[in-house]
């Protein structure tokens, strides 16, 4: 196994090599990498991979970590079934 094969995003099986390649291609923000490679869209919502990806972006681009670590989070935080959202129960 080579360094490039190291798993960075467990949910979507994205490797260090893929991340580095994307950054070199010019995708130097977390939001862009999320949209292309799906890192941050999986069940853990980026908890595991985000700090590691940010570190790579910083290392390759020289950007400061503060600039990189800006994210948007949207609810819900946790799994809710569709049924629960749309079921339209009578409320007391």
């Amino acid at each position: 196994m080579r360094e490039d094969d190291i798993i960075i995003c467990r949910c979507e099986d994205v490797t260090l090599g893929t991340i580095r390649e994307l950054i070199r291609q010019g995708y130097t923000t977390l939001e862009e990498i999320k949209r292309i490679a799906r890192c941050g869209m999986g069940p853990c919502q980026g908890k595991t991979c985000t700090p590691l990806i940010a570190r790579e972006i910083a290392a390759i681009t020289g950007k400061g970590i503060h600039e990189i670590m800006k994210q948007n989070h949207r609810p819900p935080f946790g799994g809710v079934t569709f049924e629960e959202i749309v079921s339209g129960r009578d409320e007391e």
Partner: protein
Amino acid sequence: MRIREHPILEFERGKKIQFTFNGNKIEAYEGETIAAALHAAGIWHYNESDVLKRPRGLFCAIGHCSSCLMTVDGVPNTRICVTDAVEGMVVKSENRGDIK
């Protein structure tokens, strides 16, 4: 393996129960999570990752990392590390939405 003797803690285990994992009977105690019971039974390799088919198992045990998602009683994407084992539960490590 369950700890029987500990220098500080005393483990009060609940009632013995049984559930199935991929068709195999697994013993557990009431109050244990599915992941805890599987770990005690020596089952550490849960399944393979979606894309690269890499072997995966428990990692954070607190519901934040998505390594332990399984289909429990027909419901996929159940985090077994925060789900208590219940008598008769049917746990399958295959976790795809197209499971009938």
